């Protein structure tokens, strides 16, 4: 028991180390892209047309282009083009880090002999493993490695904070948490958080990309190598929608559990209030995507505000707001 818990902690620190290296490599990749990105918009457009035709003539869009700027991933639809050496290294490191991270989460669960999400430290540990897993998994479907720096950076930061500030020893589950709903309610909340994290990253990229497309801002030239703002928006939407379904389920499962544990399914407890606020914000985001004048930047901001509220709910509301979801002892 004790040994497993300390083993888990060693794995967490190792994962953080590997993630940090992955973060550095991802950042170097972005820097390299900035350096190599075509200077003029015309050149960019030209290279994109070349790439598009070349890719279209290949089967399934996986053609490897034997040209200098083929180092840059194909920009139209995020299909798998070439990747810089840095990116390959970074992605491999991210996978290694994730395996360690997953091992840390599993051993923590084994040490506690229950699901590894019964307190804030464990929630943070599991939510980041899911967020990272989502990032790696989406890769099988769409090339989103340009998000690597954001995801690994965010994961290292979160892991550092939860390990240093929220760590608690393994303790038995108190009667209030002895319920099958602990498994369901919190797991789905963890999944939703992972998806929203990824969606927010895409929305940030979308805003930056839009900024660069429209205002031709200087700097951050790597943005030119990303898919277009509307592609990023569409991708963010699809990921946030999955997060929204999970969040709806979290809310309903939480209500069912609250009825069992506290005698009412909804009582506007502070945590319930914020779960509701987040749900409404993402409902707003989805409606914004279907409202003229609100597609694009404004809806992206809503997704970012929504994810910020998730983080706020997990940190500030848990720690400083009085309520039934009490974590004062962490």
């Amino acid at each position, binding site marked *: 028991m004790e040994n497993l818990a300390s083993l888990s902690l060693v794995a967490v620190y190792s994962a953080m180390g590997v993630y940090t290296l992955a973060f550095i490599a991802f950042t170097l990749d972005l820097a390299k892209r900035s350096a190599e990105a075509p200077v003029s918009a015309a050149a960019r457009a030209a290279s994109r047309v070349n790439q*598009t035709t070349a890719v*279209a*003539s290949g089967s399934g869009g996986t053609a490897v282009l034997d040209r200098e700027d083929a180092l840059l991933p194909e920009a139209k*639809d995020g299909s798998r083009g070439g990747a810089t050496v840095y990116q390959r290294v970074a992605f491999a490191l991210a996978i290694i880090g994730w395996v360690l991270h997953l091992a840390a989460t599993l051993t923590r669960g084994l040490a506690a002999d229950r699901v590894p999400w019964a307190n804030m430290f464990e929630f943070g540990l599991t939510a980041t493993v899911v967020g990272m897993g989502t990032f790696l998994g989406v890769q099988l479907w769409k090339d989103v490695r340009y998000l690597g720096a954001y995801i690994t950076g965010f994961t290292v930061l979160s892991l550092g904070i939860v390990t240093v500030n929220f760590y608690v020893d393994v*303790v*038995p589950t*108190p*009667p*209030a948490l*002895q*319920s099958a709903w602990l498994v369901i309610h919190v797991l789905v909340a963890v999944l939703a958080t992972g998806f929203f994290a990824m969606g927010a990253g895409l929305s940030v990229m979308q805003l930056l990309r839009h900024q660069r497309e429209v205002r031709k801002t200087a700097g951050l030239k790597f943005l030119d190598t990303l898919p*277009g703002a*509307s*592609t990023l928006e*569409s991708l963010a*939407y*699809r990921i946030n*929608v*999955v997060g*929204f*379904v999970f969040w*709806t*389920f979290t809310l*309903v499962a939480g*209500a*069912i559990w609250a*009825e*069992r*544990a*506290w*005698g*009412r*399914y909804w*009582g*506007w*407890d*502070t945590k319930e*209030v*914020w779960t*509701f*606020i987040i749900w*409404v*914000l993402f*409902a*707003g985001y989805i*409606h*914004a*995507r*279907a*409202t*003229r*004048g*609100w*597609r694009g930047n404004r809806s992206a901001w*809503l997704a970012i505000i929504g994810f910020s509220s998730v983080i706020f709910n997990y940190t500030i*509301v848990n720690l400083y*707001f*009085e*309520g039934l979801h009490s974590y004062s002892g962490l």
Partner: protein
Amino acid sequence: MEPLRPSDYDDGSAPTRTAERPDRAGDGGDGPTLPRLGLVGWGRFLWRQLTSMRTALVLLLLLAVAAIPGSLVPQRSSNPNGVVQFRRDDPELFEILDALQLFDTFTSVWFSAIYLLLFISLIGCIIPRTAHHWKALRSRPPKTPARLNRLVGYREADAPGSVDDALAAGEAVLRRQRYRVERYGNSLSAERGYLRETGNLVFHVALIGVLGTVGLAGGFGYNGQKVIVEGQTFVNQLTTYDTFSASRFFDDARLDPFSMRLDEFDAVFNAAVDESSGTLIAQPLDYTASVTITEANGESVERDIKVNAPIDIAGVRAYLLGNGFAPVITIRNAEGQVVFDESVAFLPQDTNLTSLGIIKVPDGLPEQVGMIGFFYPSAIQLDSGALASIWPQPDNPVLTLNMFVGDLGLDDGVPRNAYALDVDDLEQVTGGDTGADSIILGLGQSAELPNGFGTVEFTALPRFVSIDFHHDPTQAGVLISSVLAIAGLIVSFAVPRRRVWITAEPSDGGTRLQYAGLARGEDPNLDDAVDRLATEHLDRLGGRLENAQPAPAASQ
């Protein structure tokens, strides 16, 4: 664009947007400058504004913002003690916030106004959509557009064989891909994914279901709390509850007769050692209240109530929410007559169940007597001389009492909190600064009261539980609505709604085919879907696809 959607609905499937049409409401063609709106016209205009996407969106965001104060300021509904505390700490600010209904955020005028407007807007939006969808479900796919090459996924191909063969094969492929198909001349028009709109409508109707259930059935609910000591019996009557709150349509007759006796309460703790301080930590593992329920027919059953495992009795659900010790205290006057003999529920103050209790003896002694008592289940004496409990089980139970004499304030008819002692009109006679030591009693011990009032004895140590009784007739409706909402949500996101067309024209030695699609709602995979359709169709015909050209207005 979907007809009968709000005018500012935009699902991204229409690449070229028509400018907002001028409002057609009005009394018809007077004056070229400003069309005058009659009463009906204004009504229509306002209705259209209210049911527009933009209004719904703004109301949603307002709702999120309006909920925030509910988490910042204590609410009467969820934290009444917090509200009392707030008033005590800052009476002036309290007045202002209370005038703004901030302590009742979720029943306030402004919060209610937002969600009611939102739901009116929602109803105004889904009624016409439901009617339209009902028609769409029973109608055939629309005519094939004249120019397919302006649509998504446009492809051309050549195939051997006749136009009729090609269209017959196309129809078979489309039906296998679960399209509804209609032939118009030399073309096939197909549509699928009606479930998307169905799911979307179900989701929104289910939300109305949640609100409607709470609004209607919520009026019949009630809940009450009762502290029950081991060995005591609670009878389900309005007057026996410690606290009781009921909704509008409640009446006493709704309380079904039953009684609940607390036979035993059992608490299990795990002992752990805090490595940094070396102290013992009690980790609760299990609480079980064993009760005997007797219903109206006289039958008795034994049940266990646990945290997270309430029991149902005659239309109410009983929850175990709290527990503690209820020492039995017996007070005799100087003549040896018993003037007080009750188990007093002591409220736990920490994890080792150091507990605080109040004793009030209004009659039988020379003066009215009040006591503030501390109870330590496993008492030890600290170096400072003070007592502390080191374990939540009664291994060394000790009771200390500080006695007050004077006016308890019970005679003026104002209800008093049984768990608080108003010491304004009382004089302290033991403990604190009085110079006299607090009365300290082990279980079974007795002591003299000061002033020759008599004696006090710590007679027995039963435990108590705090049980919540709830009758909530909204639960079933809200649960069903929530499940429908989730199902509708998943379906509406997972099912793409799309139209596809195949046209066939005779060409030299075969048939010239064209394929294209149109998204109705978010549909990023439409291009792939058209590709799949064409490939499968041509496989059957033995035809060949020409190089695909990117659609001019792809909705990426």
